[in-house]
């Protein structure tokens, strides 16, 4: 019985190479943040100021 277990263990050793040689995962996923919010806020502020300026000009 012990011999059989030893044989199985020895014969299983080469299989470790097969197990560790699985294809790897594709690259890390890309993330998608939103940029330029400050610019958008500035554009909104400029738009509001322009409207106010035009309003006071009339």
């Amino acid at each position, binding site marked *: 019985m012990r011999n059989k277990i030893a044989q199985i263990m020895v014969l299983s050793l080469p299989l470790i190479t097969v197990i560790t040689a699985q294809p790897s995962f*594709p690259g890390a996923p*890309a993330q*998608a943040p939103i940029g*330029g919010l400050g610019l958008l806020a500035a554009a909104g*502020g400029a738009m*509001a100021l322009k409207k106010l300026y035009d309003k006071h000009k009339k």
Partner: protein
Amino acid sequence: MKAGGVYAAWLLIYDFVVLPDGRVDTWLSITGVKLAAAGLSFVGWEIETAGRFIACAGNRGVEIQNGCNGMELLGLYAGFIIAYSGDAKKRLMFIAGGIGMLFIANVFRIAFFALSNLYYPQYWDPVHHYSSYVFFYPIVLTLWYLWTTVSDRNDIFSGASLSSA
């Protein structure tokens, strides 16, 4: 000043309450990914999704994280509408309609990311950096402009003056 105050208040609420809680952001990210995947699958692309990940089958995926799903933009958009004077009913319509349009734009943006990773993966950096300028900002600026025009017209008719937005 008022718009800046509303936006600052929104940022504080978002950074310290909404983002750490994560439920609304997670819902936005996952729903956006599901709708983008459904749309792309409907028109014939083979799409794989897992939670907040989306990819064209066998290609590099895109992860829509909390804080990257347009939630902050929705606050900025609504903050301007709230701060600029106008009729309350029209204001609600502009906020609800604008948020709906930006949500749909975000679905298109996510779908575009998945396709750009399939066809032009080498351009990922500029694509994701400038996507907001194409998908979101024209909508936001147009709606803001319309709102200032509509509220001005309302002011002319009602005789009320503008508040300092």
